[in-house]
């Protein structure tokens, strides 16, 4: 029974953290006037007006663009990061420290400062308003974190296991598939999920580098802000919708996430 206060505390913390999200979802079902009432409206008749306005604008292309940009960049990141992480951990190159530091340092140029040069380069290449531009940029954005995470996971693999597999005469390919991948796959999943989340949610590059064809979900979202009229309810409806895919993915994968991270996020 000594545990009860802690249980209550945990629940309270969970509710406190979740409450703004709940409020967002609720507000999405209000009429604009109720959403901006003073004091806040707690009891109201739900309406789908906000959602109707959201669906009046074509949400699908934005979601597809986001999906493509996030999915492809996540895949590209994994394809690049996994072997790189291998070369920085299990069979390290000579200057692995410098290499690792280089990757991390690429995250340090403030995105805002990088925008103009990137914009100019992309414009010269004729790649403005193109989903693949976003794929490449998001890959570069997530690569350092992915290498870091994958490297930690690989370091967790006991050397003895690999050696044992080699002793058995298994080639590297086989030993990687039979031994390495099963051990690392939760980590791989965790890395992928985090990369996906960051790509899906990115706003600043998207708003400046895309126009009408490659616009992603966050662009769709801010289109609901209006300087002439009430917009909170429909904004919340849109926010709920565009956040939903990642929130669901995160909820479903949270166990893998914790397991993935706990298999040695730190080494």
């Amino acid at each position, binding site marked *: 029974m000594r545990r009860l206060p*802690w249980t209550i505390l*945990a*629940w309270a*913390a*969970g509710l406190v*953290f*979740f409450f*703004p*999200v709940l409020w967002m979802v609720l*507000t999405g079902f209000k009429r604009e006037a109720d959403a901006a009432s003073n004091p*806040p409206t707690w009891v109201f008749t739900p309406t789908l007006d906000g959602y109707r306005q959201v669906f009046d604008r074509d949400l699908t292309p934005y979601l597809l663009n986001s999906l493509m940009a996030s999915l492809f960049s996540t895949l590209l990141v994994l394809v*690049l*990061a996994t*072997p790189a992480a291998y*070369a*920085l*951990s299990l069979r*390290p*190159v*000579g*200057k*692995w420290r*410098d*290499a690792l*530091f*280089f990757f*991390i*340092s*690429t995250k*340090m*140029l*403030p*995105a*805002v*400062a*990088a*925008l*103009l*040069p990137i914009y100019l380069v992309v414009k010269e290449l004729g790649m403005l308003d193109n989903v693949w531009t976003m794929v490449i940029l998001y890959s*570069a954005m997530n690569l350092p974190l992915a290498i870091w995470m994958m490297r930690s996971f690989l370091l967790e693999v006991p*050397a003895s296991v690999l050696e044992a597999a080699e002793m058995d005469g298994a080639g590297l390919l086989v030993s990687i598939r039979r031994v390495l991948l099963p051990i690392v796959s939760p980590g791989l999943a965790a890395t992928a999920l985090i990369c996906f989340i960051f790509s899906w949610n990115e*706003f*600043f590059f998207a708003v400046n580098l895309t126009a009408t064809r490659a616009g992603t979900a*966050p662009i769709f979202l*801010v289109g609901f802000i209006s300087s002439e009229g009430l917009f*909170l309810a429909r904004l919340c409806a849109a*926010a709920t919708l565009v*956040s939903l895919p*990642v929130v669901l993915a*995160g*909820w479903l994968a*949270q166990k893998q996430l*914790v397991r993935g*991270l*706990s*298999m*040695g*996020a*730190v*080494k």
Partner: protein
Amino acid sequence: MSSATLEKEAPVRPASKRAGPAASRRDRWSRRAPLLPALIFAIVVTQVPFLVTLYLSTLSWNALRPGSREFTGLSNYATVLSDGRLRAALVNTVVLTASSVVVSVLIGLGLAILLDRKFPGRGVVRTLLITPFLVMPMAAALLWKHAIYNPAYGLINGILGGDTDWVSGYPMVAVVATLVWQWTPFMMLIILAGLQSQSLETLEAARVDGASAWQTFLHITLPYLRPYLELSALLGSIYLVQTFDAVFTITQGGPGTATTNLPYEIYLTTFRKFEYGEAAAAGVVVVIGTIAVATFALRVISGLFKMEVSR
């Protein structure tokens, strides 16, 4: 951006000396090969824009005066370094980053400990707790600004009463609170992962030895968690130092310059003053500063960069 080569680490690779040239060269390349795609990709995608930034930083180029694009050497750097605004922005960046990282790591630690025990509905509580991290940051910032902080119809005044104007009265707190709300779940996940990988036997042993829960936590769990705490602080800093969405949306850097951090200051130079050259110079200065700090932090303070030497 550019990798600061550290002489300290660089030298001696005896294996590569002439001893067995063919074998060792092949070995070296087989070690390097998997690294190369990522390395080349990172160099192309991040260093090309950086070179362009360097180039831009030597130009006097104001977008509002068409045709005003000319080489000025290093005068942009002089302007940027002598500008008091950049220093103010630096202070704000440090305050903003440090306070949101510290607070979210501490709360994250507390929550992770709460979650590291079995209780009814643990899965549900964990689900509730991680949600803020999953919500789109732009959506979160808009939500906090309009639905929570708004003095007329925001949630805080709705619950507490009064008409305090949170955003202009406590701008930094308002931004930090939003960031903490978003990032605490991330910190919590990493720390929770650490807690769950802790061996139960050690804890059991401590308990048998008669250590109190608090003592066990202080002397066993906390030291064990240290790398996890460092990792969450490091990752948090890397991302939070770049905070833009929240500042842009919630306070617009104000009131005055109370919450103008470096990214937002650079944004203002780019999109309000349209001094592209100055903005690029400020970007370069920030990168150099960040790399200096990061080198120090990563190699001296943090143990994260030490790999077990055995490999």
